[in-house]
Structure formats: structure tokens, C-alpha cells
């Protein structure tokens, strides 16, 4: 029986003629304990898909259900690890995790909550950095804190939104191994979103390509029937690995997955307006400092 189920989900932004469809007709069904990777182009709508599953946004059409209950709002049972870590910079590693633990397990005694938080810090090998602030940590360490925080909520499903794409290749490889290890220990249902096909094959039971936007949709899934634990060096020579890889890449580069010939792009110009902290800006000017060119749209020809 399906654990997480997306039925005909669509999402777009804007209204009327300016409306840009991001996702359309997404159908996905995941069983409990499964590790699913969704692979796609940058900007294809992967993060939007993740926000929908997390409940941070609602789909325009279609239904998302977890164990038959419709997903209507965010909840700790669908813990999400963001691409940019999203740690609170004024809290230490322990405090960041404790904030989540204290909230989710509010009925536990304090000592049990503390033990629980410490356990997950140890799980990601960060006990020596327990009292450090996020800015004192490297990118890889920050992401491990973020993973520990998500796991410490004891979620029904763990959502990883390009968790490793901001890291350098070596850190990335070691964190991939770590995620693989943690998954085999904790046996959570995981949805991983990535732009790295190899990463998907290394970690997942199933890989699903997401075609390029606008109106991105899921392509044909590929099962990864390679026994675990998977060794990255051996994997490179495995004919099954090569076959899966070429299937996914073939789809993404083929007519179904390829970006459309022309597309409306959201261009963001570099921020050239200095922000004065000491100058109280006009309250008429809106809520946050506006960036120049924030709203520029342009139609570009793609090869």
C-alpha cells in the first residue's frame, strides 16, 4: 500500500497570462521504508515539488496524502533538510537540534530529550562540535547538523532537498556515504531530490527523472537493483550502474525531458543597491529591501 501518494498534482505561479506552470500532472507513490531519488535540471521545479510534499505550499490541483491523510500544512512528521541548511545562526549545534526535539517531544522529561538530541549529534559524528555556532562549521558539518535535526524529529518521512549540492566534491562523497549509512540504520522513508544522477543511483531504491520546466512532470522510473552496501568505486564498473545511468540521462536529454526550445526565464540581476543598515528605510517602500531587477522576465532561446 502506498505510504506517500501524489495524485495528479499541479502547481504554478502568477495569474492570468503571466501564469507560469511549474509542475503538472505529477503522480508518485512511495512505499514505507523506501529511498526514492528524483533527478532533474536546476530550476525544473524540484524544490517546489519538495515544498508541496512538506506542506509548505499547497498544490493548485491534485492531492498529496501520507498514510491516507491529506497533507495540508507542514508538520514534524515530514522533516525537510534544505539545500542551504537553514540552521538558526544564533544557536549552537546542540541548541538547534534541541529546539526541534523540545517541540516535537514536549511530553518527554528533560533528561530524555537531552539524551535524544545527543544521540543524533553522535549519529552524524558532531559530538566534538556540540557547542559551536553554525558559522564556525564547514558546509559539510552544517549539513550534517541539518540532517541530525531532521532525523531527531523522528519523522515518518525524510525529505532531502538537494542537501549536498552546495558542497565540494570530496565532502559530498563522504556525506553521501554517511546518508547511506544513516538510512540503513534508521530505515526511514526518504525522498531525495538531486541534480546528480550518480548520487541517486548510489543511495536510492528507485530513481525518477523530472523533466525540464515549465510544466515539469515525472518521467519513467528506474529501479536500482544493486545490492547494499554499495561501494562507489566498484559501482563505477558495474554494468547495471552504467545502464541505469544512461537510461536516466537519456530521458533527461531526450525529447521528453529536454528543456523546451524557448522558455520564460526569471532573471535576477546582481544586487547593486547597497543596503544601509543604519538608515531607517521608508515604510512606504514595502517590506524588505527590494533588489533591482527582481521582477525581470525575458524569453530566451535555448539550444
Amino acid at each position, binding site marked *: 500500500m502506498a505510504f506517500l501518494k501524489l495524485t495528479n498534482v499541479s502547481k504554478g505561479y502568477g495569474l492570468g497570462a503571466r501564469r507560469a506552470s511549474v509542475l503538472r500532472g505529477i503522480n508518485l507513490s512511495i512505499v514505507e521504508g523506501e529511498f526514492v531519488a528524483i533527478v532533474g535540471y536546476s530550476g525544473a521545479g524540484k524544490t517546489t515539488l519538495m515544498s508541496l510534499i*512538506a506542506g*509548505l505550499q499547497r498544490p493548485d490541483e491534485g492531492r498529496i496524502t501520507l498514510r491516507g491523510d491529506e497533507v495540508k*500544512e*507542514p*508538520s*514534524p512528521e*515530514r*522533516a*525537510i533538510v*534544505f539545500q*542551504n541548511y*537553514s540552521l*538558526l*545562526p*544564533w*544557536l549552537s549545534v546542540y541548541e538547534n537540534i534541541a*529546539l*526541534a526535539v523540545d*517541540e*516535537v517531544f514536549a511530553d518527554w522529561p528533560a533528561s530524555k530529550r537531552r539524551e535524544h538530541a545527543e544521540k543524533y549529534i553522535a549519529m552524524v559524528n558532531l559530538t566534538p562540535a556540540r557547542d559551536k*555556532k553554525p*558559522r564556525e562549521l564547514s558546509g559539510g558539518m552544517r549539513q550534517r547538523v541539518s540532517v541530525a535535526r531532521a532525523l531527531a*524529529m523522528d519523522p515518518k518521512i525524510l525529505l532531502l532537498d538537494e542537501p549536498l549540492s552546495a558542497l565540494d566534491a570530496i565532502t559530498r562523497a563522504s556525506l553521501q556515504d554517511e546518508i547511506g549509512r544513516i538510512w540503513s540504520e534508521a530505515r526511514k522513508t526518504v525522498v531525495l531530490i538531486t541534480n546528480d544522477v550518480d548520487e541517486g543511483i548510489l543511495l536510492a531504491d528507485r530513481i525518477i527523472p523530472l523533466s525540464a520546466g515549465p510544466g515539469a512532470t515525472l518521467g519513467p522510473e528506474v529501479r536500482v537493483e544493486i545490492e547494499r552496501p554499495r561501494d562507489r568505486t566498484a559501482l563505477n564498473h558495474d554494468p547495471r550502474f552504467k545502464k541505469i545511468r544512461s537510461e536516466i540521462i537519456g530521458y533527461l536529454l531526450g525529447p521528453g525531458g529536454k528543456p523546451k526550445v524557448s522558455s520564460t526565464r526569471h532573471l535576477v540581476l546582481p544586487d547593486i543597491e547597497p543596503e544601509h*543598515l*543604519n538608515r*531607517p*528605510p521608508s*515604510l*512606504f517602500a514595502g*517590506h*524588505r*529591501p527590494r533588489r533591482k531587477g527582481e521582477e525581470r522576465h525575458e524569453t530566451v532561446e535555448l539550444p
Partner: protein
Amino acid sequence: MGALIKTCENVGLNWAVPFLRLARRENPNEQIRQILLNIGVPILAILIFLGGWSWVAANVKVSFGSLPGPVAVWVQAKTLWAGHLAERTKEAEFYKRQAVRKKEFLAQNPDGTWEERKFAGSPTYIDQIFTSLKTVFTGFLIAALIAVPLGILCGLSKAFNLAMNPFIQVFKPVSPLAWLPIVMIMVTALYKPKEPMFEKSFITSAFTVALCSLWPALINTSLGVASIDNDYLNIARVLKLGWWKKVRKIVIPSALPLIFTGLRLSLGVGWMVLIAAEMLAQNPGLGKFVWDMFQNGSSETLAQIMVAVFTIGFIGFALDRLMMVLQRAVSFDGATVR
């Protein structure tokens, strides 16, 4: 030593750093160059200023003689300090005499009640400085207690912000001189305790300061709250934090650096406004001192006004530094605050 250097840098005593490094024999040539640059240049500028001032003082005639120069002002500063010490001695002697008389009185009539008298001397210059500081901090505290919560609400709710916006825009530029009569009348109407804890003039000045120093803190707080990283708010949503908990655990900490920027600006405005408020409200502080000395209209009193100008300047500078240290202490992103 290293820790001392760091502390100096943190509290803005950057000029002291080369001396400490020199004491440590750390690249002496560079340190001496730094000292000449960082201390020599300001001292030269001050000397030029004093020279110019002396020249103007010697050449400008005013109604009551000549304008006081730096030396006359320095003499008056010493006079004011001596006056303060003399007044304190008088006060100590008064209480001593009173204690002696009380003893005699009780010895003569053991059943009688002795009525304690308070020393009725006039406030000295130093007393006036402390009155001013007390007033400005009271006003600032009132402003902070109003501005920070309102700012947080403005930042969190667009509707609330739109509701507050007209008031902020219109009242922000109003001068303390315009507020003061209104505050005075309100205080007279509403403040009628049997045993007044505070002088009316004190309350009037403090509220005027509060009304004028409210705005920078309010605006910066609302900006700080409105520009919270969406990711932090997403964490609050995923964890299903309640409204109050979200404000306490996420909104306030992340807006704290900007809240303190606002408070620092507010205290600066408050100190500036205070002098005007005290002048009009006749609160016994530096403002009243300046006004009284102006009424006296002699060369000495003009020199004393100049002493007050420098005092006001130095205290304002010290208050700003104090707030800067606090501001640095709460900034979590490691950015340097100037």
C-alpha cells in the same frame, strides 16, 4: 595581552591597540606609524580647532565683553567641579551638625520626636549631569518598551504595519518643542499622586524624550522582523511552533541586531532631544543649566554653557559607544558593527 587587544577592538578603543602591540614588541615600526596616524592626526586637528577658537574669541566682541576662549572654558570647568566639591562638603557638614543637634535634643527631652531635615542646597553641575542621565534613560526605556513590541507586530503583520504607517510617518518628524506643551498638560492632568515619587518636570522631560526617540527603534525593529530569512520561518512552520514561541525563539533573536541598531539610534536622538526638553520643562538637568546660565548673561556663564556643550558631546559619545558594544554582543553573524 591578546585578549586585552581583542577587548579594546570590541569596545571601539582601536586607538589603544598599537600601544598594546608596541608593548608586546610586535613590529615596532608599523606600530609607531599607526600611532602617529591614528593619534597624531586627531591631536593636530584638535590643536588647530583650539587655535581657531582662541583667535575668534579674542576678536569677537559680544554684548557683555569678549567671547570666552578655551582657557576661560577650562577655568570654568574647574570652577564647576570645585563648586560641586564645596557643595558636597557643605552637605556633609550639615548632616553632621544635624546629628549633633539631634543627640542634644533627645538627651534633653527623651520623649520628643526629632524631625529630620533634608539639605536644601542647590544642585551642582555634576548633580545636573546625573539628573539628565536619569531622565534620558527613563525616556529611552519607555520608548524601547513601546517601540520594540510595536515594531515586532509591524514586522509580522502587513495589516498592522499599514495601520501604524500613517502615524509613524506623521509623528516621526515632530520636534520635541512641539510635543512638550502637550505632554506637560497631559502630565499635569493625569499625574496627581498624594506623595509624588517623581517631579512633574522629570516626567514631562522623560515622556518628551520617549516620544521623539521612539521612531528609530520602531522602524528598525519592524524592518528587522520583516526581513527575517524565510527559511527560519519555514523551520517554525515545520516544527509547528505556536505564535508566541515563534516570536520568542525565531523572530526576536534573528531581528536582534537590527533592534539594537534602532535602539542605538534612539538613544542618540533621545540625548539630543533631552536638552531642549529640559530647557522648556525646567527639569533640573543640563538643559535647565544651559538656560539658567544664558539668563545670567555674563562672560563666565557663557563659558559655563560651553563647558555644558562639551559635556553633552562627550556623554553622547559615551552612550553611543555603550550601545555599540551591546550591538556587537548580540550580532550573531560575526559582522563588524561600526
